[in-house]
């Protein structure tokens, strides 16, 4: 049996996409309904930073929205909100994705990692975060969480990239302050190579 289908039957948390469920009244009445054909389950489980998070997600909702406004993970920033700038970059099963342009429903059963999930339990920073501090990589800092996540993904795949490889890998992340040089210094330092 498809476990997702089973869970769906158990929860019966379904509503039609046109019904707003922002109010608790709407939400609970939705629970009592049978799901119309073709409707999308709204109360879903997400694997965020290794934890299961239950969250009410509208059918058209983007992951950045869910993270920021439903789960209070505001480290993920929204800037262009159209898949251009990389400010909202998160890792989905280890791969960089623009969360502003990723449907939340499409990441069920997948592992989502945000900037909040990088620090160790004892507070130790991820090597990329520490290197970005040591190299004074950020300026205004708004693009920094996205830059951090792209660098983490790169080093997971390629622990000792050349500077040019790093430049290519990071090129999906814009920085209006123009701190590219210092971010690359940070990536190289995090990889154990001198910047």
């Amino acid at each position: 049996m498809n476990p997702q289908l089973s869970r769906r039957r158990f929860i019966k948390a379904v509503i039609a996409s046109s019904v707003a469920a922002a109010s608790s009244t709407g939400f609970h009445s939705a629970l009592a309904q049978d799901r119309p054909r073709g409707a999308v389950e709204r109360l879903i489980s997400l694997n965020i930073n290794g934890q299961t998070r239950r969250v009410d997600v509208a059918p058209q909702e983007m992951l950045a929205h869910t993270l920021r406004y439903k789960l209070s993970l505001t480290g993920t920033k929204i800037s262009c909100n159209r898949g251009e700038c990389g400010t909202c970059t998160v890792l989905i099963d280890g791969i960089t994705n623009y969360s502003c342009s990723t449907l939340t429903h499409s990441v069920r059963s997948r592992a989502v990692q945000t900037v909040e999930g990088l620090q160790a339990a004892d507070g130790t920073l991820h090597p990329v975060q520490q290197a970005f501090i040591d190299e004074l990589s950020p300026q205004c800092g708004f693009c920094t969480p996205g830059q951090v996540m792209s660098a983490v993904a790169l080093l997971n795949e390629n622990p000792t990239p050349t500077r040019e490889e790093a430049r290519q890998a990071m090129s999906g992340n814009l920085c209006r302050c123009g701190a590219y040089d210092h971010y690359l210094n940070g990536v190289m330092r995090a990889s154990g190579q001198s910047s």
Partner: protein
Amino acid sequence: MNDYKLVGKDFTPPDVMGKVTGKAKYAEDFRVDGMVFARMYTSPMAHGKVTHIDASAAEAMDGVIGILTADDVPAVEAPNGAILTNSPAFIGDPILAVAAVDEKTAEDALAAIKITIEPLPFVTDPLDSLIAGGPDAREEGNVYARSREGSGFRTVKWTKEQIDDFRAGKEPTGEFAAEWKYGDLDKGFADAKVIIEENFVTTGYAHMSMEPRTAMAYWQNGTCYVHGSAQSHTFWMPGLARLLGIETKDLVLISENTGGGFGSKIGAYPIAALPGYFSKKIGRPVQLRVTGEQEYYMGSARVGFQGWIRMGFAENGKATATDVFIIEDIGANATGGDASSAGGAISLVYDPDAMRFRGLPVLTNTTPRGAQRGPGQNQIAAVMAPIMDKAARELGLDPLAVRKINAANNATTVYEEQRGVTSAYLEEALTMGAEMFDWENRRQQPKKNGSKVRGLGIGQGYHSAGATGFDGLIRITPDGKLHIHTGVGNLGTYSFASTSRAAAEVLKCDWENCEIHNGHSEKNLPWNSYQAGSVSTFAHTRTNYVAAMDALRKMKLIAADTMGGEPDDYDIDGQRVFLTENAAQGMSYGAIAARAIQLGGEYSGQTYPDDINEITQRSVQNLAGSGLVGVAKDNLPQEGTIPGLACAFVEIELDLETGKYEILDYVGIAECGTVLFPAGLAQQMKGGAVWGMGMAALERHVYDPQYGLPANVGYHQCGIPTYLDVPSVTRTGAVDIADPQNPFGARGIGEPAMGCSVAALTSAISDALDGHIFGRTPVSPDMIVNHVTGRDQSFLPLQTNNF
């Protein structure tokens, strides 16, 4: 060499940790109980009049809380920007806002509102407005001149012949609105061996800060709390209070982190007041989320130039005369002043013996303009560099030598008044840069390799880099800790932290024993300058210096009062005040602070100087009794222009077949007095270099002249430089000679860091093309290919805001 403990040393600014962990909160990251979401309806027309609004369907929708229109906010006199308007003058001008329980409902409600707008004539290129019979961007006129004598609209038209002559490169003969001059211009040109005459265009382009200017507000007991995206902090307070119709004492501004500003968030902008009005109307906290696209529309843009310049040079390369005429594209809200600043920059960087500036600010129905990193100085830097190269070529001189002979120095005089400078060492910067870049050797290398051709360029940047008269406020608490209160905004330059170290330097405090209080009115901040115009370093090392000196004076008084002798008998170190002749006899800073609280009066802030700003006064009142308070207004002597200067050397490899070029090497040298924070300076120089690279080749406004529609509202359409557009390594250095009018010798650098870059690139492009001057930014690959193949360009001479 100095023996500073902190000045000139690297450190980790306290906000970096939050930036890399995602814990740093920006305006949109805050939520409060009961908060609702507002979205804006913005003008789909370039110019018009709202004649009818039917919001009945929206108001009836579930979840809609309220609607705010121009009738709910103060009317603003044209051409100034309004919070909401019924007379939109550019696409994206905010007309109304809807608040709802969530953003989707607010969006749905906006779609249900019917707005009737009567279209009015519009224009997207100043010359199309200036020509006889051309449309005016405002019903009141097509020119808005601001001056000390008075500001106002007027209608200025040139004949078709005058426009045609201007486009053909001849000296403009039409009416202008501003003029200043110095020296004998005729003599200057008579003394010249070479005279260069060019016309030029620098297209405006959007700031595109990555954090859109989202704001949230609520009221508590008559106080308005605003979470905003502010480039400056306390400098915002009077302007935002004015917009909200309240006193500064009734305003709390929270802006601890700001996702870029670049001049677009210097002072409080109208839309920052919208949530305050909306919250008052509906009785709930309101967050107005501004989208990335709306940030393009209303986040302001650089002023565009269309100009003409004639410049004379003596046989040795010395500039003898400059005559410059600039038409400014000042958008719909008449924000500018760039042209005169450009003239001022010429007078300083190239120091001609005589000069005349004429300017005409023309309104267009394009996005509002605002100061953008080096407003005026950086546009003209791009224009001037190839002109200097052309002069050098015609005189048979090294382009470096022509820069050096004209380089700003301690004797340089500036602007119409020909006032002096605090200090300037641009020649030293050029020498340092040429050495790092290996200019002499590179000039000897072969230029052409198949379709690839190398180009070398030199650029110079300038901006006045200091301000005076602001306040400093510090406090030492009984635990011995130094608290530095700063109203400097946090826009990513780290100046709020680096200038705070000035106080710790004076008081010889360990940096680990210091705490910075910033970004929130309730942290009791002093009246500080705007974070723009490269002023923070100069201005706030001074304010923190005077506050620390005030604290030092008080500490010595307390020591003398407690332990005997005279205040001058005491010295400080190791966070102790002690007798100079017997260091064992002393008091810790903590003990001094405790004694200050006992003594009260000026020692702990019960009294304070009369001349500090009311914002600082309130902060001192709130802090009174909590420690030893050092507070003072910066009344240190200051005379003359405070220059921030920089130069850059660049090598490009240009492909004649594709018109694209790659930047092979870049060296930028800062001349900003004593280096305050080396890593921060490198960041500014490198980030500025990226901005210059964007202006030279990529960034522009594109408007459809038929419908007035902007064609490039996204980052990539705008041409924001990416990792792949700029070199992965840029090299920087600094002259590091102290300025005599700053206690630590420091001046600012943010803007010239960009000007030198764009100038070096326009110079290098010209060099690669055997001296051809496009007289235009950006220079796109198709322009290069058209030139190389002898084809006409796809635009009219002097056309702007075009593809």
